[in-house]
């Protein structure tokens, strides 16, 4: 019994350590994203953030989501961003991500907001304790996603269509006379 307790303790402290490690890399990455002066470096730190996020998701028993996170963000979004940066940023890359003067107000503002939410969150009484998330989430997720959430799912499908047409429309070459090719 005692051993079991110890085992649980062990598990708990492991969980705690994992959390703090992931949280640390997440926040460091995030801070680098917003402070680095080189846009490419910012995008690279963003990848760190996304991987740490995936780790947190695994810690929260959301393995499918972690996979999606890695695939979509680290794989798709970041590459898209890098391409974007390359396309528009032709000048010196080292000074590509400057900070404007608003940070003087923005910093205390965001600090206050963090303190406020953090304090409230830290003090909140939680009604329920953690439940057991079923293993193998993808098996459970698939039917729910495609059956119960079919309307949001279809909405996303249409959303993608709209966005795709929008993107194509916007990046189409424009001839000199102002008419599209």
């Amino acid at each position, binding site marked *: 019994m005692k051993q079991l307790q110890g085992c649980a303790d062990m598990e708990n402290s492991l969980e705690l350590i994992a959390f703090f490690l992931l949280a640390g890399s997440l926040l460091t990455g995030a801070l680098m994203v917003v402070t680095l002066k080189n846009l490419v470096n910012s995008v690279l730190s963003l990848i760190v953030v996304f991987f740490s996020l995936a780790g947190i998701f695994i810690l929260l028993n959301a393995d499918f989501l972690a996979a999606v996170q890695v695939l979509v963000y680290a794989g798709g979004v970041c590459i898209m961003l890098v391409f974007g940066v390359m396309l528009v940023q032709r000048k010196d890359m080292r000074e590509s991500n400057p900070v404007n003067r608003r940070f003087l107000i923005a910093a205390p503002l965001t600090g206050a907001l963090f303190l406020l939410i953090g304090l*409230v*969150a830290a003090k909140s009484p939680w*009604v*329920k304790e953690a439940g057991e998330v079923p293993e193998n989430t993808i098996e459970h997720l698939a039917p729910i996603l495609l059956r119960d959430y079919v*309307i949001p799912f279809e909405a996303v499908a249409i*959303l993608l269509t*709209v*966005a795709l047409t929008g993107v194509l*429309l*916007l990046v189409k070459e424009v001839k000199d006379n102002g008419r599209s090719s």
Partner: protein
Amino acid sequence: MNIDFSLLITEISLAILGLTVFTLGLILPAKSSQKGLGTFSLCGLLVILALTIASWGNQGETLGGMYLADYFTSFFKILSLTALILVILGSKNYVNSQIENHLEYYSTLIFATLGMIIMFSAGDFITLYLGLELMTISFIVLTSFRRTNGKSLEAGMKYLLLAGLSSAVLLYGLSLVYGAAGTVFIKEIAGNIAQGYFNPLLIVGLAMLIAGFGFKISAAPFHMWAPDVYEGAPTPVTAFLAVGSKAASFAVLIRVFLGAFLEMQEQWTMLIAFLAALSMLIGNLTAFAQTNIKRMLAFSSIAQAGYILVGLVAANEAGIKGVMFYSFIYVFATIGAFTVVSEVYNKTGSDDIADYAGLSQRAPLAAVVLLISMLSMAGIPPLAGFTGKYYLFITVVQDYLWLVYLGLILSMVSVYYYLRVVLVMFRDEPADPAPLKLGSTASLTLWLTLAATLFLGIYPWPLAKLANTVAIAFLAGL
């Protein structure tokens, strides 16, 4: 969990229509044949509107409460479809001459409406969020539609980033509410709060919800995007943005705040009252200084958002009724005004108020419609806006008398800047006296909006009664 498809008639047919327009646009080769797309969408929308009206009594919920169909949703479905039809009808001229990609334009407009309709019917946060995003993304695309125009692109960029930020805030709020109340279903939240699931995070979440929705309805101080985006967007899109997006967000605001947080009413009504007051103040006062008519109408629409919020302050059936009534009449006044603006732009290439000089001689119908629409927005009896304001403000006379006074004073103030435009139109001599020929469909739209504004002002009872029934049913169904 079976899906009751009969409840989804509007949604399914709208999606099919949007995709058909899309496909037709791809198949039809010639530019000229693309011009028929507008007519095609119009016919389709009229059929869908008829279907929606016909299925008025068809109520229920499907997918385990995730998707609702009640009188409330039907009312707003009809509202948004009416708005879309009027916008498409009124903007055919403008689209033919200013916009080249018809298939994307019409299909995106239809999908934006689909997003609104999903929002009305959402029974949970997930569906709600996706409807909202579908609408917002569609509007972003539409705003930047005139991609050869730097202003249009700038407006699109501003809308994208600010809407993205506000969506993030809204989502954060939704996630906190989800955590604090333990569910994403609006009805269950109400139940859980009543049972004492209470967490301080709920308060933070609520504040963020107000901010997120406040952005969408362009209530001060979350309104800053509106004038810029309204000015930069193609005028028909502005009209639809001002009407549809706002009405949809009000519907959701009612659904969420009365559906889930009625229990906590005393905490949020005061804040909403302040937002309403601030919106009226900022909207009306800043409108004074505008020289561009679209910006002026944008500030006026911020003020209108303030008036409508008053109905939410009351948080009872009279208040809901007021919101619904006002949203509906606002459709006609706004689309009437913006149709005039787009027709004038189409002919003169300018949105400056100064260029409206002598419009009464050049296009009497347009001048009269603009006059009536603006007087209705100012709340001059016997126009619809007066009745609407009356229904709204009467609900808070008891508890928020100061709000009523403020509203009345600012309504009077607003008459001044509306009349400035009127003076320019009716008194000043036109620089170019040539008659300004309106398109036939635009004239039809103008006549329709004019008739509706006058009719609903003189004889508001049928619509008021309808709104009343819906409001009672809505509150009973909570």
